[in-house]
């Protein structure tokens, strides 16, 4: 984990202890557990050929989505990525219907037309996962225009990976948001690889948050495996962007699984993976809650059992749901 000096932090996110209530800590722990359990189930389904297509697992990065989204209001917007299960669950989607979508069922969020890479939950401000790297960044920016024109106080959290930071859409969008002072929090999840391409080989800087300087906006780096640190950083950013325009937050994290199901992990070492597993965001939060007295062992076990149960129920619902209807094949192309 690269060390983050105070000097590297931007004006938006200063070292200030924001109190995180016990209840919220437990909620965040539960959300991380749900994401992990959801994806373990998805990985199992894929290995058994029960789900077709591909899937991109978020395991190891849960603290970033959960910490960030926990700091948002219910009606704030997010845009997500191809690795979007974490953001989607963090934003509060109904797990049974999300699982149904992955199994291609009519009761899925997108009637089985979207799948893993295209889940959206517009009612909760989730503008969608995205199959195109960097594809959601302009969309988040446009949501910022709607907020600005209406004059309300919502914000947009725009998630993307270290791969997307080298897409033109990143540059065009962050620049546009900076000149128009749009309330967008750009959150780069640096999981160290764009598929097999190491961020060290893909960019000539060690600290991706330095990119913010080019747009005259605050840039900061946060330990993406520390849910409380992410929560605090995004919480401060949320207040900042409403008044001052966008910020860039780079969350340093790591994906435990391969890029997708085709990944043989040839580009990274077992040692590196093991080292990051030591920093598992869920285990870290558990330890911290126990040590800090935010929860007892019994309470934690109860949350863990609850998370597993919620996924089992989601699976049951999804499996019992009917397949997508062939009658729906040509619907939803155009709105009336």
């Amino acid at each position, binding site marked *: 984990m690269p060390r983050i000096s105070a000097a590297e932090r931007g004006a938006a996110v200063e070292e200030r202890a924001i109190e995180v209530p016990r209840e919220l800590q437990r909620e965040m722990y539960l959300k991380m557990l749900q994401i992990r359990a959801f994806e373990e189930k998805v990985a199992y389904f894929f290995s058994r050929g029960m789900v077709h297509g591909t899937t991109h697992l978020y395991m190891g990065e849960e603290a970033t989505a959960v910490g960030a989204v926990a700091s948002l209001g219910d009606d704030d917007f997010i845009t997500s990525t191809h690795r979007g299960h974490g953001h989607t669950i963090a934003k509060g989607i109904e797990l049974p219907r999300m699982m149904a979508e992955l199994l291609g069922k009519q009761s899925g969020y*997108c009637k089985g037309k979207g799948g893993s890479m295209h889940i959206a939950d517009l009612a909760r401000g989730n503008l969608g996962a995205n199959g*195109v790297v960097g594809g959601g960044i*302009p*969309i988040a920016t*446009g949501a910022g*225009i*709607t907020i600005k*024109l209406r004059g309300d106080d919502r914000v947009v959290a725009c998630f993307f990976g270290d791969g997307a930071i080298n897409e033109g859409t990143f540059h*065009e969008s962050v620049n*546009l948001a900076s000149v128009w002072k749009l309330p967008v929090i750009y959150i780069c999840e640096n999981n160290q690889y764009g598929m097999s391409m190491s961020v060290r080989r893909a960019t000539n800087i060690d600290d991706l948050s330095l990119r913010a300087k080019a747009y005259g906006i605050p840039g900061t780096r946060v330990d993406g495996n520390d849910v409380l640190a992410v929560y605090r950083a995004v919480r401060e950013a949320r207040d900042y962007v409403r008044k001052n325009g966008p910020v860039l937050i780079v969350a340093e994290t790591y994906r435990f699984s391969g890029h997708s199901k085709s990944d043989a992990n040839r580009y990274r070492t077992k040692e590196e993976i093991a080292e990051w597993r030591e920093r598992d965001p869920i285990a870290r939060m558990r330890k911290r809650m126990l040590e800090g007295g935010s929860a007892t062992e019994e309470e934690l076990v109860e949350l863990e059992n609850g998370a597993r149960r919620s996924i089992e129920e989601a699976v049951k619902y999804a499996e019992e749901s009917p397949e997508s209807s062939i009658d729906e094949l040509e619907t939803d192309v155009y709105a009336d």
Partner: protein
Amino acid sequence: MREITYAEAIREAMSEEMRRDPSVFFMGEDIGVYGGAFGVSVGMIDEFGPERVRDTPISEAAIIGAAAGAAVTGSRPIAEIQFSDFVAIGLDQLGNQAAKMRYMFGGRAQVPMVVRAPAGSGTGAAAQHSQSQEAIYCHIPGLKVVTPSTPYDAKGLLKSAIRDNNPVVFLEQKLLYRVKGPVPEEEYTVPLGRADVKRTGRDLTIVTWGRMAGMCLETAVRLAEEGIDVEVVDLRSLVPLDKETVVESVKKTGHLLIVHEAVQSAGYGGEIAALVADSEAFFYLDAPIRRVAGLDVPIPYNPTLERNAVPTPERIERAVRDLLG
């Protein structure tokens, strides 16, 4: 009836819709004080201010993508791309994002946005500023594609496009911007998906759109002096397509000539030909279906070359005579 230019008609459509609906806003390069590269938006920033008439940096992907993001969150953006050729820079946002959101999300998203862009050759700007690329957009389910040939249609279609709940690619004809035509003072709209028979005739149907509609009409008037009676069907909107008007016209005349400025190969004219070949109108045809379209070359700079890279009145007239031969 009063006469105004095609550019003025477009400006009126935008201004009227912005007065009518506060969720409509307009963004693009140099659309503010400059008034747009073709002067379409002159004065709009004075009425609506810089929040609703937003001058953007030169960032086509962000313009189109931000329009999609604004649309899916409840705004009704009009995005101007300075030349339609540059839509290519934002094509992921148009074709992979805006066009597909509704379907991917199971019908829960609505993306009411218009991408306005000037198309066509004839200005001497050569290969990267002169194309007619409507076929690309027609090939992407989820997009609507409109291209008006008169000031009246431009205004009425643009108002419908702004009110439509889907992404609409609105291709303007840059050589028509200064052309005047009758446009009523009172409110009207022209529905998307309805062709206009610009001239009725007995002998042969020309199906066309955009700038070529005028050229075909002039040819038809000339041929009428010899007693050749040509019907000119201006599609106006390519998606959705008014199949019925095309089929009915061909059934009446028994001859079909398709004229478009875009390059012939894989052009939308092929789609029209296939539509007729696959319809009951096929049995009424007295001659093969013929196309007069752009040559399969980039638009050249030299004026003579440029003029001959796209349909000319002479080529259209020759094709009509051949078909009726």
